[in-house]
């Protein structure tokens, strides 16, 4: 047994309202830069739907993740070293920009500096790739709320696994949101795909990162990741991905997406696992056994042997204590949380509590009591379509664990209604799902009351490990990287490196003191990282622009 610590996340999908605050704050913090305009480390998908990038779950097409060989070993679905070498300059398994979306901006300048025209001025969309006019026909979240469902639903890789009849029925059945970040897998296929050894999984907390100095831009990680959560920065020519906001995590703060989550649906904490058994667990024969295999290598932080092992592995005492208080551990124990696509065999560590609300909606819509335990249990047994869909997402198609999770959530609703309305603690409801009333009330506290301190149990990093940690070593200070906080003498991306944690302060200060741009032109706010200027945002000092429609701007001096 080799005990290691993993920083993990669980998202309670019943609480996600699809507001995308996580996406926006994440983008603002991490990918509001040239070269990653199209990149959303965190995105929120409407399901059923095709996701971002479009159809990423279709591994027949993209070849992400691992497959088990006949001899019981794991190999990358996209092939081994030789296969990779043969494709190194031309990788057909790589999503194109249109599988993400063509990022755009608007010629905002028209709203301020338009010449006298017959019609009121308007800002047209312009491609951020070509600078040309464009009709917007895909975005980072095109099928939001099932918009355009008739055109896109048939391309949902999960739905295509289900029958035609099911698809038609599903249209009426339900909808939910799936927020996604990097899974920070225990067995990451992106790391295994990298020919340069630039991707690594941090020993201390399991966060998966790209070493920008080592990255050579081969992009094998992009194809290797079945979740398509590694992205290519087309300006720097290097890979980038969700960092689990390690600069915040290291000082005990939640990730940006968690901190800003309106629904308070995200949980953060450590789990201890047996690193010696990861590949064994990831190699079990039956896809449907992967969930249990992964559960089995998660270690009980209260077990004296595990504690001893953790100490032996150099895990600090306060981290062990944090693992014992971890909401992730608790939610895994309740067996209400499930991994996303365990069949990719990467042992993902961002798990989900499947949504019960769509089931409740169907029940109440049919005129029944959506919070009565027996009615709900019966509905969970009967509503094979949504349950089947959830199973394809979270349990490689095995409905039993989804059933079990939903039944516990249903029991919690019914049990707690008894408590709050009738002051009755009905143990029978708890027992029906293999729990006690006390356990249900503890789970209720964690899921429904969800206090900040209980949702986020994040031990801060230890200074004695500083040499190994990024924040203290400042490894994000690469050209064009998010560590580039200050505007240096040669523009927004030059100058000395600044620790990530203080970046925003510098941006703020720069906004106040920045000079105006020297040249007018198309405003590109997405490319504007908050440092220095954004082209065309403000009229040049002492200059007036004279422009004829369709022709490039011409300037003359004022007065």
């Amino acid at each position, binding site marked *: 047994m080799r005990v290691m610590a993993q920083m993990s996340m669980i998202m309670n999908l019943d609480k996600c*309202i*699809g*507001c*995308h605050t996580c*996406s*926006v704050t994440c*983008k*603002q913090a991490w990918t509001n830069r040239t070269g990653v305009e199209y990149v959303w480390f965190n995105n929120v998908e409407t399901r059923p739907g095709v996701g971002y990038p479009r159809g990423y779950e279709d591994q027949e097409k993209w070849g992400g993740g691992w497959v088990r060989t006949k001899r019981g070993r794991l190999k990358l679905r996209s092939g081994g070293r030789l296969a990779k070498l043969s494709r190194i300059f031309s990788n057909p398994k790589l999503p194109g920009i249109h599988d993400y*979306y063509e*990022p*755009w*901006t*608007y010629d*905002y300048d028209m*709203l*301020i500096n338009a010449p006298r025209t*017959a*019609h*009121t*001025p*308007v*800002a*047209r*969309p312009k491609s951020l790739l070509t600078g040309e006019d464009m*009709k*917007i*026909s895909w*975005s*980072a*979240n*095109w099928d*939001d*709320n*099932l*918009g*355009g*469902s*008739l*055109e*896109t639903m048939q391309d949902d890789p999960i739905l295509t696994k289900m029958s035609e009849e099911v698809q038609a029925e599903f*249209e*009426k059945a339900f*909808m939910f949101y799936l927020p996604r970040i990097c899974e920070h897998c225990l067995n990451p296929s992106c790391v295994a795909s990298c020919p340069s050894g630039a991707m690594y999984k941090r020993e201390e907390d399991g966060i998966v990162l790209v070493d920008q100095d080592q990255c050579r831009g081969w992009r094998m990680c992009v194809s290797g990741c079945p979740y398509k959560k590694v992205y290519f920065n087309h300006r720097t020519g290097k890979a980038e991905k969700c960092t689990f906001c390690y600069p915040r995590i290291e000082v005990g703060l939640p990730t940006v997406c968690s901190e800003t989550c309106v629904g308070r649906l995200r949980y953060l904490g450590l789990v201890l696992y047996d690193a010696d058994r990861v590949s064994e667990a990831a190699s079990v024969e039956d896809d449907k056994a992967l969930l249990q295999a992964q559960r089995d290598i998660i270690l009980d932080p209260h077990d004296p042997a595990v504690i001893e092992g953790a100490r032996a592995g150099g895990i600090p005492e306060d981290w062990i204590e944090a693992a014992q208080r971890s909401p992730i551990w608790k939610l895994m124990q309740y067996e209400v949380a499930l991994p996303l696509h365990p069949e990719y065999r990467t042992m993902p560590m961002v798990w989900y509590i499947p949504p019960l609300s769509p089931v409740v909606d169907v029940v*109440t*819509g049919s*005129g*029944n*009591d959506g919070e009565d335990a027996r009615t709900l249990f019966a509905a969970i047994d009967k509503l094979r379509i949504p349950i089947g869909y959830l199973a394809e997402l979270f349990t490689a198609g095995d409905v039993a664990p989804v059933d079990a999770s939903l039944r516990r959530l249903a029991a919690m609703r019914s049990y707690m209604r008894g408590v*709050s*309305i*009738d002051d009755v603690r009905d143990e029978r409801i708890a027992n029906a799902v293999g729990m006690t009333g006390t356990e249900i009330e503890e789970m209720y506290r964690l899921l429904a009351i969800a206090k900040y301190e209980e949702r986020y149990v994040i031990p801060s990093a230890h200074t004695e490990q500083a040499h190994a940690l990024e924040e203290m070593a400042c490894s994000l200070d690469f050209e064009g990287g998010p560590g580039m906080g200050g505007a240096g003498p040669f523009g927004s991306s030059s100058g000395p490196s600044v620790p990530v944690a203080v970046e925003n302060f510098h941006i*703020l200060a720069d*906004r*106040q003191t920045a000079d105006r741009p020297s040249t007018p032109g198309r405003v590109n*706010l*997405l490319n504007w990282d908050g440092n220095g200027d954004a082209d065309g945002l*403000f009229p040049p000092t002492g200059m007036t622009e004279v422009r004829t429609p369709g022709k490039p701007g011409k300037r003359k001096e004022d007065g």
Partner: protein
Amino acid sequence: MTLEPNGGGLVPGKFLTASDLGGEAATAPRAEFKTVLLDQSGAPVVPNGSLGHRFTPEDEGSWNLDLGDVTPPLSLADLADTNESVEVLLPRFDLPPEAGSEHAGGSGVVVRGVPVRRVAGKLVTTVFDLLLAQYGVARAGLPGEWPSGYDDPTTPGTPAWQEEITSVPAEQAARLGREFADNAERSGGRSMILMGAGTNHWFHSDTIYRTFLALTTMTGCQGVNGGGWAHYVGQEKVRPLTGYSQYATAADWIRPPRQNIGTAFWYLATDQWRYDGLPADQLASPLARGVFQDRTTADCLVESVKRGWMPAHPTFSRNPLDLCDEAEAAGKEPAQHVVDSLTDGSLSYAVEDPDAPENFPRVIDIWRANVLGSSGKGNEYFLKHLLGTESAVRASETPEDARPRDIRWRDDAPIGKLDLLMTADFRMTSTTLFSDLVLPAATWYEKYDLSSTDMHPFIHSFSPAINPPWQTRTDFDIFGSLAERFSQLARTHLGVRRDIVAAPLQHDTADVMATPHGVPRDDLPLIPGQTMAKLIVVERDYPNLAEQWKALGPLTAKLGMTTKAVTYRPDVEIERLARLNGTVASGPFAGSVRLDSDKRACELILAFSGTSNGRLAVQGFRELEKRTGQRLAHLAEDHEGAHITFSDVQVQPRSVITSPEWSGSEHGGRRYTAFAINVEHLKPWHTLTGRQHFYLDHDWMEDLGENLPTFRPPLDMHRLFGDGRPGTTRRIGGPYAAQQTEVTVRYLTPHSKWSIHSEYQDNLFMLSLSRGGPTIWMSAEDARKVDVRDNDWIEAYNRNGVVVARAIVSHRMPEGTVFMYHAKDRTVDVPIAETSGQRGGIHNSLTRILLKPSHLIGGYAQLAWAFNYLGPTGNQRDEITTIRRRSQEVEY
């Protein structure tokens, strides 16, 4: 309730009041505002707490809900000796009117029985009995038509009846009703209706609200934490209300302020009234007695203004400054001069001639609002008549025979009324786009300010994270600079003048007893404050405006501060504020408290409000104790020494103190819920009966058929304005397909999940997470009818204008209805419309202001005007639109 003859039968009439009882009761002061109930013997009782007890000195201490030993029967059937019952006629509106008799209004009459008795010679029943009749709750022995059960769809009130209208299954409606009531019973009233903004945006929103309130009141949920009615419309709850009102309305210098009802102001200023012509009698009950005969809703507005029910500025056809000069020349009091001039016809109301050049607005200053991209209904009319820009108004003006009776029609409508539009904002909105002057404003993170909401009990501060960048200034500095310059110019141009303000009959004052029994009379002379608005002369020291703005005026100390009929005396606070803020060193107002910075203004608001100053809260409760005779001050006494200052709220948001400014209680750390003080401490509601009302007995309510909560369907735009009929398609043989078809659908503009009105949804991140420009959601069925696929460019038009957008086709949309989310500005990705040849519109290009007469009633108990409380709504949900596919080659 009295029952009155109408046609061949009886209808619900007026509240029985002490004045009907004769004898001693009838001679009591304000007897016509003291409603009556019956005790268990059937004898009439005049209970405490009605409006008649609220303002009279004789009734001090008896404005409360304490019924003593009296237990009023809810129904007369509960009294053993009730042995009579009659049929009453109740209007219904669920069916369309018979062709040819639209002007009768409504669609039919239901006959249902109620138990009755005779009191003081009048035939009476109870409100509860009428309510049961209205809802079709059958009881043995009563005459009339009753449903055979919940599953009877043939008569109004049953679950099966509503299913045909709402498509909510009857079983589900019945189950929901049972659960709501059962939960309320078991939890002690913790059933709640949490409503969105949508219900408030239907033309008949008031009937929807009243239905909600009827349900939550009947189930005992009002005033209960976790129960009642959570109106999620906006977040406007100014908790430090008294101080805010002093500052916002300059009540320390001049009272009263001029405040308008925005809906009616824009309706006239943008000339939407010229296209409306909505006959008020088409909204009326089939049992109407002719209040609205031959009149349009615009005429109702004129009547409302002339009676002093609703404010309207400019009020008169001449400048009120000049009216004062005229009065002085004539040696008369200005109010008398106005009354005389109105009587002899030499002066009229501006609403009677809104297109006269002297009556329409010339300069509008917009402060952080987006009337042209978000809130203003009838956008194209704004553009045409107010601004004179390109516009896509498609409607014809009202034909001669249908025009308002009481408004002067000028054949040439003014185009471009405004000389100057100025906007202070920090975003480029449709409004700034059309403004002559844009004053760049600081954001929340660049200034000091206060914030409070109805969503939580805290007062927040804004503190600048950075200074206002570039040329931006804070709102405070913008207004300060304008005031300085104005004052300089005023020395030459205006000087010190007397002004006469027409102030409407005001909520929470004795004004609300202007209309006994809710019967407006035409046989009375003009008496300001009774049969017309109050006429109040004020002095305007224009050259010193900026100096006044920077100092606390004398009226606060002299007159106190009155909020909801409770007057606060901030004598200690003024002294303390003088120490905190300092005093003005020199000039005409030397020695006054300084208000020359945003922080100092915030200090004033906090010092002068009960919610943030415990001494004033206690003081207000003590005054209310005198009026009610109930113990109340203990709700705030534990905070009597607490005074929240601006630096306190900068440290952290502060929970407010329980205060008579509001009806909830935070006493002992509980959370605010409306009406807790009324329910728990027997403080009356500010209504006629002092109780929550199911029944409204104003004449206008009766003629609208809305004495009781009732179902009114959306306006029939096809019948009223000749638009297409929802659900119909039409071949148009357009240029892009020989067999092109268009479809008419209902048009809703709900709030989107991604914006607060126009804010946020239009930043580049959010646009990248959606469709990047204006869109209209439509159903697969409707899209198929007009050959539209997802993301195709479409045009939506009706009589009000045209919108170009891309279609979002989704199976989640119901057939027959489209959405265009609220506040799609004209700023990004709006092409030229084929239909108009002009820049495609915004969501409000397809809407228009429609006034409902019931919203214009004033001067009667709770039906009286108060700023931001009672007045006509901006509604747009009843609209329909026609949709067609357009050329996919768009031009900008």
